[in-house]
């Protein structure tokens, strides 16, 4: 038996045989061909054609965005410029394998040199080249395995195109050797409730077919465990399945301190599932869905109808709606059309809304009207409205004043920029509440673009600098008697949720699938415990040691 450490996502445990994403093929040798130029050309044409058709078929199966990516890849395989490059090399006596490898590499270098978005397309091109070369060699193409039985998937990291094709009913657990807690794999695992360990560097040594226990709660992979260990893991998995079906109680600590557990929602249709999983309200309702699919802002009646649906599903409960958060990763043509070098630092969030104040005013109108509609037909929901990406006290005053003008009773701000956290005592004098967006707060505190893979390792909300800003905000809230909630991936990590409460968070909002684990974990600690665990994490030097320190402090508590 050997133990491989990593970052666990959630609290689950699973076991099963490993199936690996196949490793990249070794580069072909540039040895002269023993076949005629015509024969080599025919081999390339056949391989390229077969790969293009297969990519198209996979695209049709996957649908959505993945289909566009896969169809573009099919076109790359049969690209006429590429064909010219390949033919030049074949004409000089190269093998089909080398000609394909070298011609793709020359295009890849061009794309990489341009950088940015085009640099990322280089990975798509690599994938096509690998497929064509695999076909020429008569070996399976690299990619998602299909062993024909349920398996534990081991990969370097999963790209969106991979996960689109993954048959989740066959996946027992996920292990990646790279990627952090906000990687695509981690988000997928959380959304779908799959047991996962990410960033397990030594997972590269796991061979196909090896039985492993994936223990997300402990953050370790056990390779080749004995029968006792397998049985214990099975018992834990069963116990957890029972806990998930246990009666749902309101979020609270062991000493009875209430910590309302709320849901993050992106559409009113998600409400029923959230209520079923025990959400005590909505801590973050993203309104972007109303806007992203259109070239113009939706009308007030259109918005009002969506908000009414949402509020009706949560009568008597709290619903926090975030005003439109456009810009950076979700640009909207009608709001911000200017090209920006650093969109994350540009005209986004409340800044963009202020520049197009009509859109904000219409949104507030629709929200107030929907609230009145619901009130008129029975018990009202407790509507709170907040502004995204607020960075100054002045912006806070601006938003709260405007919201009041429309009769919004509870108006607050998102704390995502360090400046707002540092001046939380002044921000919270103006606002009725604050909600900490941990993903953006981490991005701005560590100065690491969330969308950039090369700096993904900085994007870890366990970083003591981030925790310290959360504590500053929590303290200001406690002194002024104003609620400070958390919304963002951080609240879905059960141990981090305990830390956040210890730092002063008064409610936690997360993807509904994470509610059960967080609820169960909170019940194990008192408020004093949570504060001690938080102190241990705060005293660490970096994110990884903060996590370890919190785990040790938590173990000492139990």
């Amino acid at each position: 038996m050997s133990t491989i450490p990593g970052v666990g996502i959630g609290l689950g445990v699973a076991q099963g045989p490993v199936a690996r994403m196949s490793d990249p093929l070794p580069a072909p040798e540039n040895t002269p061909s023993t076949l005629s130029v015509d024969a080599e050309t025919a081999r390339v044409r056949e391989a390229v054609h077969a790969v293009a058709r297969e990519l198209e078929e996979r695209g049709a199966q996957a649908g959505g965005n993945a289909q566009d990516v896969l169809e573009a890849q099919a076109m790359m395989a049969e690209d006429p410029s590429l064909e010219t490059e390949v033919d030049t090399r074949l004409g000089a006596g190269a093998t089909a394998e080398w000609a394909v490898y070298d011609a793709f590499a020359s295009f890849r270098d061009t794309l990489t040199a341009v950088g940015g978005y085009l640099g990322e397309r280089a990975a798509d091109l690599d994938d096509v080249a690998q497929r064509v070369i695999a076909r020429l060699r008569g070996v399976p193409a690299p990619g998602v395995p299909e062993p024909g039985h349920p398996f534990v998937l081991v990969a370097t990291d999963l790209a969106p195109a991979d996960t689109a094709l993954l048959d989740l009913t066959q996946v027992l657990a996920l292990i990646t050797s790279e990627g952090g807690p906000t990687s695509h794999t981690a988000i997928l695992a959380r959304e779908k409730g799959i047991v996962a360990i990410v960033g397990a560097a030594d997972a590269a040594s796991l061979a196909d077919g090896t039985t492993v226990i994936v223990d997300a709660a402990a953050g370790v992979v056990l390779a080749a465990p004995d029968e006792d260990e397998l049985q214990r893991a099975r018992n834990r998995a069963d116990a957890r399945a029972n806990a998930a079906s246990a009666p749902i109680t309101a979020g609270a600590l062991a000493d009875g301190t209430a910590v309302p557990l709320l849901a993050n929602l992106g559409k009113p249709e998600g409400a029923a599932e959230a209520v079923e999983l025990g959400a005590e309200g909505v801590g973050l309702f993203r309104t972007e869905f109303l806007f992203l699919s259109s070239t113009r802002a939706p009308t007030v009646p259109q918005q009002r109808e969506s908000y009414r649906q949402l509020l009706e599903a949560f009568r008597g409960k709290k619903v926090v709606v975030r005003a439109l958060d456009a810009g950076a990763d979700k640009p909207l043509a009608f709001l911000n059309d200017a090209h920006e070098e650093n969109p994350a630092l540009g005209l986004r969030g409340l800044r963009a809304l202020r520049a197009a104040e009509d859109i904000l005013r219409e949104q507030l109108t629709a929200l107030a009207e929907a609230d009145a509609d619901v009130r008129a037909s029975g018990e009202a929901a407790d509507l709170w409205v907040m502004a995204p990406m607020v960075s100054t006290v002045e912006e806070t005053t601006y938003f709260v004043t405007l919201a009041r003008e429309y009769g919004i009773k509870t108006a607050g701000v998102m704390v995502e920029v360090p400046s707002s956290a540092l001046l939380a005592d002044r921000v919270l004098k103006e606002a009725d509440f604050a909600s900490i967006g941990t993903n953006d707060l981490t991005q701005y505190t560590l100065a690491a673009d969330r969308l950039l893979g090369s700096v993904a390792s900085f994007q870890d909300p366990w970083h003591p600098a981030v925790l310290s800003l959360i504590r500053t905000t929590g303290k200001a809230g406690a002194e002024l008697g104003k609620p400070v909630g958390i919304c963002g991936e951080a609240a879905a990590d059960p141990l981090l949720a305990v830390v956040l409460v210890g730092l002063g968070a008064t409610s936690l909002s997360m993807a509904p699938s994470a509610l059960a684990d967080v609820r169960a974990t909170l019940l194990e600690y008192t408020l004093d415990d949570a504060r001690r665990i938080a102190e241990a994490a705060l005293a660490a030097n970096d994110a990884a040691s903060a996590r370890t320190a919190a785990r040790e402090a938590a173990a000492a508590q139990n």
Partner: protein
Amino acid sequence: MALATRTVRIGSSHGLHARPAKLFAQAAKDAGVPVTIAKDAGAPVNAASILGVISLGIDHGDYVTLTVDGGAAEDILDRLADLLATDHDAE
């Protein structure tokens, strides 16, 4: 049967990358006659080559020049120009 050219402003908010590039290269290929695309005064590339189109690094608001050699050149230009002026990222 002659060379026909037209200059078009790019409408897609993310420029001629990814999906819009795919749609455009596909349409150029379907035209069945040679079509080239050039950014500003740059060298023209085969418009049916998605890699060629992508590597031009065309952004929103850039001007490109299309050249169609033969066939119903004006009709083909109409179709392709329309495709380039539309904002496909907003669909």
